[in-house]
């Protein structure tokens, strides 16, 4: 079987790619997908440590993370549809109306 640190390293790399996606991409949908990637990395760490310590709590937490992520995606995509209706773009650089 595989040591814990391998799974952790994979999760860290996934999280890193997610961070780069959020910081670099300007399409708001891709930014959202990068967020999902970061959620996924966190879930992987939770499941890994649940296995490491033989406890169930980590896996239960993953359920709640999934549920909240689903709710967040529903609201976020609805917001994106509304922004697209008013601005005709979902480029996040266009959403700067509050900029002084």
């Amino acid at each position: 079987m595989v040591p814990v640190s391998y799974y952790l390293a994979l999760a860290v790399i996934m999280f890193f790619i997610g961070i780069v996606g959020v910081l670099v991409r300007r399409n708001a949908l891709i930014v959202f997908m990068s967020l999902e990637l970061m959620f996924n990395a966190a879930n992987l760490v939770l499941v890994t440590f649940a296995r490491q310590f033989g406890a169930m709590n980590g896996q239960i937490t993953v359920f709640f993370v999934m549920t909240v992520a689903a709710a967040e995606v529903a609201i976020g995509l609805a917001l994106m549809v509304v922004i697209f209706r008013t601005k005709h773009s979902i480029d996040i650089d266009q959403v700067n109306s509050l900029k002084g």
Partner: protein
Amino acid sequence: METGILLFSLVAVIVIGTSLGMLISRNAVYSALFLVLNFSAVAVLYITLGAPFIAMAQVTVYAGAIMVLFLFVIMQLGAERLEDEWKNRRQHMLAILFAVIFLGEIFWLAILQSGLPTTALIMPPSDYASPSQIGMTLFSNYLLPFEITSFILLVAIIGAVVLTRTEIPVKKPVVRPGKE
């Protein structure tokens, strides 16, 4: 080489490759499809970690429901090719620099310095994280968070409907005869 390590490396290559594909791809539809593959590969990792129920939930909820929602919105908005040129090159360089620093920091602290056992994971007991055990834990110790979760989902449904509603129906003044 051991089969467990071999399987892990294969899946890890798929996970990292699809993540990078999601990040680099110009077309948002391709990004979404890469992400579906990524979620499925992570589900395989969950199975190797002894979490079959989480793996199935991952496939149905993430790869099934959430990504289908993404694809619907991409196609509805026609927003698959919104950014053609990469402006702000300096900002990108700075962002990637800081992300790499963060990556190195996490690697140093969480993996090299943490003193985690480098031996392989032991086999769990045979009924570890079976669906029935997960159900028992979820509905005994975590009953209140479970109920709160259902409330969160309800609020999300209502919020999505209210936000995307196009027109607000105009209320007509009610004419009451005999009032004047």
